[in-house]
């Protein structure tokens, strides 16, 4: 399967295309990616990118490209649980120039609601670097609450937990 197309008035989540990659690679080399686990080189970054696509076939979840309503690539959002993640995660990034327009929030609503509606009843959290105040703020707007008891894989992270009643 490929990523399901999810749309709202404010944003589109669609399957990745090869043409998304260059913008992501530019992002990973920019200060905007300072709180993320960074790939060592372009091919490692591409493997990560391709894994967000192949993950859909492998485990029925994965990544989407975030697009503005007029079809411009704005970032990535993913529901994923690689082996070192204790729980299923909702993660995101926005490319330079797309912040402050509500795109990440609109994308987060779509992906969160999709994830919480899946029949596997798995929990959903966001692992966020404790200094990444913008993403922490977004998780809170999406209804997630800080869970100090959650297991972490990176001591620099805090864990925000989503609740089904938050999705409406």
């Amino acid at each position: 399967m490929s990523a399901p197309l999810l749309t709202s008035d404010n944003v589109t989540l669609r399957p990745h295309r090869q043409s998304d990659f260059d913008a992501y690679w530019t992002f990973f080399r920019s200060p905007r990616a300072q709180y993320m686990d960074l790939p060592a080189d372009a091919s490692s970054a591409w493997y990560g990118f391709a894994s967000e696509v192949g993950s859909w076939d492998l485990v029925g979840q994965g990544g989407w490209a975030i697009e503005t309503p007029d079809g411009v690539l704005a970032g990535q959002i993913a529901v994923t649980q690689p082996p070192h993640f204790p729980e299923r995660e909702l993660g995101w990034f926005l490319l330079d120039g797309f912040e402050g327009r509500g795109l990440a929030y609109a994308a987060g609503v779509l992906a969160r609601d999709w994830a919480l509606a899946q029949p596997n009843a798995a929990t959903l959290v966001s692992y966020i670097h404790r200094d990444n105040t913008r993403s922490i703020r977004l998780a809170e707007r999406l209804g997630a609450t800080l869970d100090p008891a959650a297991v972490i894989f990176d001591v620099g992270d805090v864990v925000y937990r989503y609740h089904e009643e938050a999705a409406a």
Partner: protein
Amino acid sequence: MTTTIPVLETKRLILRGPEPQDYPNFKATFSSYRSRFMGGPLNPYESWMLYAAEIGHWQIRGYGMWMIHDRESGRTLGMAGGWFPAQWPEREIAWIIWPEVAGRGYALEATHAARRYFYETLGWDGAVSYIDPKNLDSIRLAERLGAKRDDGAATVDGNDVCYRHPAPADLVSSQIADGIALEIASYTDPLFKPEGYALD
């Protein structure tokens, strides 16, 4: 945009897309010393990511690496196919065989079928293989496939050697094509069958 991965069949093998149930075998080899020339050994996250990327490669590029299965038992033997991530100068034909079944010609048979698919069905005009110069088994396989070292070609990162495969026309009614067919056939029907062993 979902790519349906074609199934290729050879005398001994069936090549199918990588599937979830094949992952433990992939992980075993890529967590081991066997994968030292393919960026390994990998930790559990890297191994999982690469396997997901093997599947994603098909969706993004429209081709990729097949899982090689034994036709009779169905067990997996390794992978072979096309590989073209970022940073690769040209489309690569790549292979890996699980260590416990190496030396039986599976990589030759699978790679030969994959290359023919790329040439005849997808219309590729050529391909390369990027090989670690210490990986003598793969260099020998590249040469058995008719590939020649191309020192003028760009490499992935300078730590590898580019082997250039014969062009499609060079694999039609040619000595190399006959040689490959003969070698593949010899694995199931050896040219020289020992009839016994001298006992002193």
